[in-house]
């Protein structure tokens, strides 16, 4: 479909406004990220953060694969496939992103094999559940909004702050490759995405769906960062102070391994 100049200008204006809205979203500008610049975090803090963030890393590819199945045309499939190829490890020495993340986790102090045995804050579980819901139950453009702009345009801004904090905490560049590779790759993904999105952003109805997806994802992200904040301060308290002094409880919190036993994600023929 070829667009008139006016249609293309309108679509790009919408996307530009959406980028700005994402940049200023409280999930992207959460204080846990902002303060990494001004209020140094310890390796222990990042160990806690890593334990909560890993499940998001490990599930992202599945949301994308599920969304790919619902993509209405080849152009959309192409964008999703290009991102997936990176997620599978095409531009990261053949190792998928979850494997890279595990290296960071081990540098932060987790033992190999324990990555999926960490009690997860309820908002971590909610984030994953919400993204499976969006990528399978919402219209395709809502899913595209969530995994496209909601991720690709927000992650570089969030990770830039995180990388500053990781460096201040003394991590070597080789240990934080997962984070730094996303600064480049997601900038590329974001640019590819903008081109893929233009043709969908001519009609108001489509724009609303894409924006809805992006904001659903970012709202879940804001809740996720509060969950991580909650975990970091509570774990720090438990580590150094007498038992029972933390205000929080981990009661009922599931690990990723336990979640995998109860979640069944499938794409199958329905007649």
């Amino acid at each position: 479909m070829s667009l008139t100049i006016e249609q293309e200008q309108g679509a790009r204006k919408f996307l530009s406004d959406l980028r700005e809205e994402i940049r200023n979203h409280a999930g992207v500008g959460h204080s846990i990220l902002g303060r990494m610049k001004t209020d140094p975090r310890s390796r222990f803090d990042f160990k806690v953060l890593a334990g909560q963030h890993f499940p998001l890393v490990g599930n992202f590819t599945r949301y994308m694969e599920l969304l790919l199945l619902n993509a209405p045309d080849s152009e959309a499939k192409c964008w999703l496939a290009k991102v997936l190829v990176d997620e599978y490890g095409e531009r990261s020495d053949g190792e998928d992103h979850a494997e890279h993340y595990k290296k960071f986790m081990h540098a932060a102090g987790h033992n190999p094999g324990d990555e999926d045995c960490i009690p997860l804050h309820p908002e971590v579980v909610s984030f994953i559940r919400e993204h499976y819901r969006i990528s399978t139950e919402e219209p395709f453009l809502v899913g595209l909004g969530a995994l496209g702009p909601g991720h690709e345009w927000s992650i570089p801004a969030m990770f830039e702050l995180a990388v500053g904090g990781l460096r201040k905490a003394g991590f070597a560049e080789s240990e934080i490759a997962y984070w730094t590779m996303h600064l480049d790759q997601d900038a590329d993904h974001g640019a590819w995405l903008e081109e893929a999105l233009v043709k969908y952003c001519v009609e108001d109805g489509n724009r609303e769906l894409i924006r809805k997806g992006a904001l659903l994802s970012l709202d879940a992200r804001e809740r996720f960062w509060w969950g991580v904040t909650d975990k970091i301060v509570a774990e720090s308290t438990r580590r150094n102070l007498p038992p029972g002094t933390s205000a929080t409880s981990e009661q009922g919190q599931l690990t990723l391994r336990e979640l995998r036993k109860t979640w069944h994600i499938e794409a199958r023929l329905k007649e």
Partner: protein
Amino acid sequence: MAVTDLMIVAFGGPTEECCEKHVECPGQAFCFVNGIFGDNPARRARVDEVVAHYKELGGFSRFNEITEAQGAALQAELAKRGHDLRVTVGYDHWMPRIADQVGKLRGDFLVLVMAPHQSSISWDAYLRRVTEGLDRLDASRRPNWIGVVDPFWNKRGFIDALAERVEAAASSIGADLTNSTTGLVLSAHAVPLPVVKTSKYVEQIRETAELVASKVGAANWMVGYQSAPGDSKIEWTRPYLDRVIVELKESGARRIVAAPVGFLCDNVEVLYDLGIEGAAVATAYDLPFAVAEAVNTHSAFIAQLADNVEARLTHA
């Protein structure tokens, strides 16, 4: 073992002291609020909004001054009871910083968290700063024992102090708390719902409110949450203060008394968010409005803190 020190930890507020992070000082209130959000352009509008509240109140906060007065009163009360503890105060978001103050403690110590209700982003956040201070100490300087004083949200001295403040505010506008035409708002800082999922914050506030309302014989009262950042896109604890004022009016209230039961001193949330913004909502509905003073250095409150410190000392 000998406990030598009592460390009081609290949120903090901007004073005239300069944080020296900028070549040209943009104002202590800006540095304080911007520090909370982490100098993040995405939150600049919210930072500017809160800084404006401070500026309307003179640009500084009495938070630290009042907290230090509470500490001095507590040290004196403990001395009267035969406990020679040196009180040191530190803040999460302003000088003197908690982690720096930990380095000045002489040996085994108690920590008193100046947050009446427990959530990770106050209680644990301040304690995290204590652990940060401990991490900086050489092994030889680390204390053998640290105790954390129990919280006090439902303790008699705290409730009595709050009740007295409520009654004084009610008297100031001729309000009879036992009559349902007086609406009583018991307010606390809103917190994001992800945080209350792991703590008893909401239940503790509810209990404080019930105890205070019962003590003053309030006929028409509600808990109200205040000061949630307007740029957050997620749910925070509700109902919000403005909604509560409207609901109390709808239930027959003709005047409103608001009491900051979730705050321990007259900080900007009490003076501006409750005292100015809350008053504006009430005025819009033609409701006379009075804000109770926070507990500050009320003698019953200080005595309660001393009771809790003594109770923890027995376990040292």
